[in-house]
């Protein structure tokens, strides 16, 4: 009960919640797409522009030094947040997508050869599919996908036979953005280690995990982990690539430019130490600072508390949705994050989205950049609701009632109490 009260009060930190959309109080259920920003984060960004605008790592003047301090403090916040051993292991990128592309180019070009195998899974976001396809095409490598069962859980025991002497990399998501499955990453990595030791490198796409689950890269024993700032209450345009130090050391630069060099002549350059080697050019300074601030804010609330509270939201939503006879939930994994995908017979997800928007409820409808997964479930699109810790049980009740009205609207008939109780 105390927990519930606390979470109610955190709503005050998010000014965007206090607005009306089409005459209704906003209910924001699209957190898997991007999260709202708390006032502390907004203030940090504003403060940077007000007082500290400058470039980092270059000037000797006061503004630049202030900005650089905050920038590097953010790196430390990321390091502690994910339990990395060293600051050298934290590379700032523009987002999950760029982190994966960096890996596909830098790691891929150096260590993937013709006939080598890369394994992804059937539930990946396009950003964890396409960069590997492009790499496989460049190198003549082979891309395989680990299948899932009809509940939307990975058949990860198959890895024992899928991994061969040519397998170099497994890249998989921690949480499915489309159907909410939480993959048992630690167990999966342990299996990879028992079959192939450290010969198979494991990339964890933590884009949908970072705001909701505790992350500990040492405990997971992943080789790389990537996520985006905007899905964890920070600005867009910033993301993280974590890599084990020895691995990052062994990889060539991805982009060339300022700040990533040690010595440059017109013929040849040598490169800076980690993590600078992978941070060419002027970064999204205010974005990085906002990320540090967002992670510090989350640390204070406690990611374990967030997990507990969101489990409550998810269980309530699951119960409310499955009590509606016209709803088919897509993805019924036994371990799920606060993400629910569903379809409704006779109402296209787009119409669900527009209808709910008119009631002030923001949801996502579409293929969620996971076309192969949609095909697996035999749907072209779904409606998706995804929570953050500022959502409330009462909002889910409102959603449920609006879904009933919506069904009646599109079908031109009313549902009786008996219809709703049957099931």
């Amino acid at each position, binding site marked *: 009960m105390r927990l519930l009260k606390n979470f109610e009060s955190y709503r005050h930190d998010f000014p965007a919640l206090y607005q009306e959309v089409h005459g209704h109080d906003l209910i924001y259920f699209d957190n898997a797409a991007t999260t709202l920003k708390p006032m502390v984060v907004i203030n940090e960004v504003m403060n940077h522009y007000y007082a500290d605008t400058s470039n980092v790592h270059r000037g000797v003047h006061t503004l630049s030094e202030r900005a650089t301090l905050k920038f590097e403090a953010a790196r430390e916040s990321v390091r502690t947040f994910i339990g990395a051993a060293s600051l050298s292991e934290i590379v700032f990128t523009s987002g999950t997508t760029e982190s994966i592309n960096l890996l596909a180019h830098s790691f891929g070009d150096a260590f993937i050869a013709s006939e080598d195998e890369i394994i992804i899974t059937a539930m990946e976001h396009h950003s964890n599919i396409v960069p590997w396809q492009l790499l496989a095409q460049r190198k003549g490598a082979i891309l395989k996908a680990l299948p899932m069962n009809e509940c939307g859980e990975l058949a990860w025991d198959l890895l024992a036979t899928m991994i061969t002497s040519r397998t170099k990399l497994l890249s998989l998501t921690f949480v499915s953005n489309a159907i909410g499955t939480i993959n048992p990453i630690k167990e999966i990595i342990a299996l990879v280690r028992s079959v192939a030791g450290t010969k198979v490198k494991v990339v964890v796409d933590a884009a949908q995990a970072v705001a909701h689950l505790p992350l500990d890269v040492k405990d997971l024993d992943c080789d790389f982990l990537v996520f985006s700032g905007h899905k964890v209450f920070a600005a867009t345009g910033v993301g993280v690539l974590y890599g084990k130090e020895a691995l990052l050391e062994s990889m060539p630069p991805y982009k060339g430019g300022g700040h990533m060099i040690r010595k440059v002549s017109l013929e040849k350059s040598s490169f800076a130490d980690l993590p600078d080697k992978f941070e060419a050019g002027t970064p999204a300074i205010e974005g990085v600072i906002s990320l540090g601030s967002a992670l510090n804010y989350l640390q204070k609330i406690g990611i374990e508390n967030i997990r507990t509270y969101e489990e409550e939201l998810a269980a309530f939503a699951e119960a409310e949705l499955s009590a509606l006879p016209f709803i088919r939930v897509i993805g019924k994994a036994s371990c799920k994050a606060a993400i629910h995908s569903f379809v409704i017979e006779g109402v296209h997800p787009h119409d669900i989205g527009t209808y709910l928007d008119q009631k002030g409820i923001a949801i996502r409808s*579409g293929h969620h950049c996971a076309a192969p997964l949609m095909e697996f479930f035999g749907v072209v*699109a779904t409606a998706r609701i995804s929570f953050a810790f500022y959502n409330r049980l009462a909002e889910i009740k409102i959603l449920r009632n609006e879904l009933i009205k919506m069904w009646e609207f*599109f079908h*031109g008939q009313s549902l009786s109490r008996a219809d709703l109780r049957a099931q």
Partner: protein
Amino acid sequence: MDNLYQELILEHNKNPRNFGELKEGECLKQEGLNPLCGDRLIVSLKLSEDGEQIIEDVKIRSDGCAISRASASMMSEAIKGKTVKDAIAIFHEFHDLLLKKHDPSVCPHLGKLEVFSNIWKYPSRVKCAALPWHTLNEIMEQTSKPGQSTSE
């Protein structure tokens, strides 16, 4: 809400006209895709072979949203029996309507299609209403090019 989902749109969504596909070889076919939402539809068109290019039959296959289904259904009614030239004129008027550039005194051919006159208020849905028409237009552009045969 009723602004967008007018009675007529809901009715066509529920009971779409001319849905299905014409027989392969007897018609022209075109697939339309909306990569943003994954919507996919197929327009098949049968034109008269007398050089008049009259749209003798049209069928649409769609599992899209209410807006795109209703638009497809009403499009089929609007163009059936018309010449390709007339259908192209209606397409242009409809296009203007979706973009709020429509002037009824200049474009008198829309009739029932005016039910879509509020769509511009829902920018993310304009594409849904436009997809059937753009797909149809791709076929018509091919056939109205000089020297082009009208059967596949």
